[in-house]
């Protein structure tokens, strides 16, 4: 039986994920319980959304470092709008958040696609610009739970269904639906395959008549919109939004994307892998806090080394595979 490379990668990731769970279970007393699942699934729901958006951008050979600030901004502005008009129909609110996020993404996309500026520089700049917009418009005051409509904060803990003690929240279901939709779109639709084509060989894609600028612009808009949706979930989960909301999420999302097996040079990768990558990173993050042997301050160091390890392993493996293919031909 032959297994395709991307399936193999997902299987390996799943193996690593299970091994990590077993490892922490052997180290921490009472680790395997329903509370752990409920907590981790909730935060993975947020990170997975951002990571999927990031994956669209990375597939086209770009990167979006601004999404942490986009999450913060949309959470803040959505909260602000809800405080002003608390009677807004609930269905409209996530749509609004996505629209706000998409607008930020469109700004990035315009600069990168229209002027062909390097995305790393543009989004490093907008990371700072969006954050300062947030600081300026909030004027130091923050959104607090008690001034938001009650349905919003209840929504974060509302269960879609339960399996024994395991509670599957609505936010988890929404996030999974987004991941699956993105997966089907990227693998089964012509418009989805374009993202891969642009990223794996821009020249060939141009000769084939694909519009690179439009696709890259779209990738940033998608990334912004999903960050906006994540901002809505963030607002719902935490209620209190300060000017530092979403700080550092861009690094986690890049981590999830890279660990999830999306090639950082564009053109290959799988959104399901990204989901597992996000879950793995969050699992390690949450578990290190509870592991007595190692201080929780190792979190960042571990995340950085994990990204480096994933990229290095990927590069070395791909090179070896290519060489073997070349040798056979």
């Amino acid at each position, binding site marked *: 039986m032959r297994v395709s490379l991307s399936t193999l990668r997902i299987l390996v990731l799943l193996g690593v994920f299970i091994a990590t769970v077993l490892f922490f279970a052997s180290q921490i007393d009472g680790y395997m319980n329903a509370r752990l699942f409920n907590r981790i699934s909730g935060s993975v729901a947020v990170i997975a959304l951002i990571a999927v958006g990031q994956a669209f951008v990375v597939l086209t050979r770009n990167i979006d470092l601004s999404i942490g600030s986009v999450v913060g901004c949309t959470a803040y502005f959505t909260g602000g709008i809800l405080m002003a008009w608390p009677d807004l129909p609930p269905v409209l609110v996530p749509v609004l958040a996505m629209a706000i996020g998409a607008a930020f993404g469109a700004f990035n996309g315009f600069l990168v696609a229209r*002027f062909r500026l390097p995305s790393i*520089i543009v989004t490093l*700049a*907008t990371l*700072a610009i969006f954050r*300062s917009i947030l600081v300026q418009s909030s004027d130091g005051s923050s959104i607090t739970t008690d001034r938001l409509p009650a349905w919003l904060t209840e929504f974060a803990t509302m269960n879609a269904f339960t399996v024994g003690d395991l509670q599957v929240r609505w936010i988890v279901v929404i996030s999974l639906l987004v991941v699956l939709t993105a997966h089907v779109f990227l693998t089964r639709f012509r418009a989805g395959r374009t993202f891969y084509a642009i990223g794996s060989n821009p020249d060939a894609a141009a000769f084939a008549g694909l519009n690179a600028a439009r696709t890259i612009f779209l990738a940033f808009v998608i990334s912004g919109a999903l960050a906006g949706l994540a901002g809505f979930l963030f607002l719902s989960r935490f209620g209190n939004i300060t000017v530092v909301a979403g700080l550092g999420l861009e690094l986690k999302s890049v981590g999830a994307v890279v660990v999830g097996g999306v090639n950082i040079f564009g053109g290959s990768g799988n959104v399901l892998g990204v989901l597992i990558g996000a879950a793995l990173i969050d699992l390690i993050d949450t578990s290190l806090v509870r592991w007595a042997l190692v201080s929780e301050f190792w979190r*960042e160091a571990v995340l950085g080394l994990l*990204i*480096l390890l994933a990229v290095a392993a990927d590069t070395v493996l791909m090179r070896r595979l290519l060489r073997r293919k070349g040798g056979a031909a």
Partner: protein
Amino acid sequence: MTWMRSWEGFLFLVLVLIYALNAWTSPVFLTVGNQINMVQLSVEKIIVALVMTFVIINGEIDLSVASVMGLAACAFGWMVQAGVPGGWAIVIALGIGLACGAFNALFIVGFGIPSLVVTLATMIAFRGFARVLVEDRGISGFPDWFNALGQRGLVGPVPLAIIMFAVLAVLAFLILQRTAFGRKVYFIGANRAVAEYSGLDVRSVKIRIFIASGTVSALAGIMFAARVGAIRGDIAQGFELDIITMVLLGGVSIFGGAGTMSGTILAILIVLALRNGMALQNITGHIQTGVLGVLLILSVMVPIIRETGSRLLARVR
């Protein structure tokens, strides 16, 4: 008068303009005290910008510099607290910076992974190590001579920081524009493949540049610790934005191969004067950072602006 038409000439005019504007809006701006203050308060960033010029002209980038600064400063503080004599702590902290640079070079040159990805990961990792060292504490109580070096004048009112910047700027200028090594940095950045086929030691040049970047960043981190007299885990966080903005605004191409040290130095002075002017107008740090972000985008658009400008000029003629 050809220099007027060069990018450096334009930067010089902008600098004069900003100085005039600042002097007009604030009586304090042109005083010697404020001018010294202006450089001293940012000296850590600007000495790293000098090395970053080499890195970017060489066609690479180093996003980890601010984290190396933080790690070196935290390691220094941790060692002083553990009873290591200040002098030794400085040497070891510099060694850590060197090791960080070598670690980056190992992955970039050794495994052939783009510097963008490697230094993004080590930016997180090195910052993480700094946090592991000091957790959420702040450390102060450094030796008096150490704090004095960072805070008081060494020669009259001029502190060590400014002397060090002046010396390093001259050194960086000479190495980049007047030595064979400098020419290699340009050549490799302009076309790596051709440089390799011409038998240039591309790998050794890149390794040396990244090691220099790590070491100078560590030096900058230690100077930061001396100036503030205390350290925390988030020290120097986000400085890479300022540093890269200074270099790109100076006319260095993000794709490598072009730019000058005098451009970087002029851009450094522009950014300093701009920040100082905003601070004198009571504009908060977050907003200053936002303005820096706008400036960064404008500075990567420099080639486009120049092209459009010359096309317009040609049409007028």
